[in-house]
């Protein structure tokens, strides 16, 4: 029983980690808590819904297309709203406020357009096989989610560690002015970071849609709250921290629902957040630079 719970928690946590990875990357490089990030998650799921139910595309092509689509939306939003403030060197709370207004407008517009009803992916899309090992049961959909998450996370970490682009991103994250002096095009690199982060969020949206098969305009907002917990627990801007914290949160939520009370599932993350702020604001691993004020 506990093994099954841990497995379910691990799978949920993998998606949390994937989602938070883009969030923390965006913060680490662009220095803004971007609340429209949850919207890219929703948009990813909706693009996948459109591609599979209207155009009948198979999953292997719908997933990357939705990810790229959400990434492009992220680039557009970032360019329209944040580039200006970044160039002016505006305080970080101004950028945060712009994204708050934007996400309210985007979510409300989307609800007005599409309605708040829950939509579902075509049933044929979701593999229905399941495998048993002893007491543990895994569905093919869960394995697909785990596989896709692992590939995406590995690709992102590889990109950031081992490529020239990754070097530029890391340079921009740690010393923006010095990066500019070394010939790194800050505007272009920022756009690429938006694209990558938006794509991770969008992919997360598609994978969660596969797992729970419930798509509606406010799904990103629920996810964003998990994102907050994960990036604070892992340390703001800390990619490895986000990865581990995501898995931890998934397992803690599932275990809380299973062994304590299912009503507490949504609250436990927030308790963790407050606890971290009180005891260890630099995150579990203490590697994020806490910006004291």
């Amino acid at each position, binding site marked *: 029983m506990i093994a099954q719970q841990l497995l379910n928690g691990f799978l949920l946590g993998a998606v949390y980690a994937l989602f938070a990875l883009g969030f923390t990357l965006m913060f680490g490089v662009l220095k803004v*808590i971007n609340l429209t990030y949850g919207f890219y998650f929703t948009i990813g799921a909706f693009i996948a819904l459109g591609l599979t139910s209207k155009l009948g595309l198979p999953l292997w092509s719908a997933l990357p297309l939705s990810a790229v689509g959400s990434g492009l939306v992220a680039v557009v939003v970032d360019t329209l*709203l944040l580039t*200006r*403030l970044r160039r002016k060197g505006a305080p*970080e*709370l*101004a950028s*945060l*406020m*712009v994204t*708050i*207004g*934007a*996400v*309210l*407008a*985007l*979510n*409300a*517009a989307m609800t*007005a357009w599409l309605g708040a009803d829950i939509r579902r992916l075509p049933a044929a899309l979701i593999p229905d096989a399941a495998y048993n090992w002893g007491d543990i049961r895994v569905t093919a959909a869960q394995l697909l989610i785990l596989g896709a998450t692992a590939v995406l996370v590995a690709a992102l970490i590889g990109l950031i560690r081992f490529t020239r682009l990754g070097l530029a991103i890391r340079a921009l994250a740690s010393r923006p002015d010095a990066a500019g002096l070394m010939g790194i095009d800050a505007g272009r690199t920022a756009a690429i970071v938006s694209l990558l982060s938006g794509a991770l969020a969008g992919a997360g949206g598609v994978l969660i849609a596969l797992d729970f098969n419930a798509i509606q305009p406010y799904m990103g*907002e*629920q996810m964003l*709250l998990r994102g*907050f*917990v994960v990036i*604070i627990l892992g340390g*703001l801007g800390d990619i490895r921290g986000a990865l581990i914290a995501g898995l931890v949160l998934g397992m803690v939520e599932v275990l809380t629902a299973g062994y304590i009370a299912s*009503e507490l599932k*949504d*609250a436990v*993350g*927030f308790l963790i*957040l*407050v606890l971290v*702020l*009180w005891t260890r*604001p630099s995150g579990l691993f203490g590697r994020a630079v*806490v*910006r*004291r*004020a």
Partner: protein
Amino acid sequence: MTLPPWLDDFLWTYQNLVHALGVNGLLALSMYVVLSVGQLSLGQAAFMGLGAYSSALMTIQLKLPFALVLPLSCVTPVLFALLIGIPSLRLSGVYLAIATIGLGEVLRAVYLNVDLFGGPMGLNGIPESAETWMIYALLAAAIVVLWVVGRSRIGRAMEAMREDETAAQVMGVDLWRYRLGALVASAALAGLAGCLSAHASDFIGPNEYGFDTAVTILSYALLGGIGTPLAPVLGAWVLTLLPELLRGISDIRLVVNGLIIVVAVLFLPTGLFPWRLKRG
């Protein structure tokens, strides 16, 4: 109190709107207090909800008189403000913003799932003990107090830390204390507003105090500006009256509120009413 008949008629017909204007004015002030020390809280709706639920329970379950319930409605929001504010106000501003957004959503889950709070049905049958004059008296008192404080040494310190934290600190302003004081005052104001609105409408529900409400409250203060305590109140009134005057936009009210924030931050950083407090 005797009112002229035309005013009495007007108040009766537009009672809900008149109440909403007063309550939203108080909420805008609660946002003003936090913004004026250079912080951002998205917990105003959550603090309002805590005031509303705790006061409704005091009235319904404990049968306390309203004269006692109203001041006590500050207690729960202030405790939560301390729980979140003490650690996060030592850090950079994003931590408070994140923690307060989280608070609103987690409380919604609690109201929905715990029987004491009535679940999805909320709490019904709250006696309508909040009179219109009480709401406006409190609003006027809050404006006067904030005006006086704003013109004092404290107001000077608050403006200094909003403009340049480092310089203010060098001048001996204890940033953390001012921030915590502002957050506590704002939680108390929002709690009072919640208590008044709960006792003016007889029903409260779990979905009234979420992210959308928090952002709407922020849009009041950003539209009006934070130059004087009157500015955010006027901002709240404009945004409360607008959907009433233009029926067509009530469907897209939230879209408008969101866009107002975007436009205000990008193009109108001092708001519609940019006048500033004069100090002697």
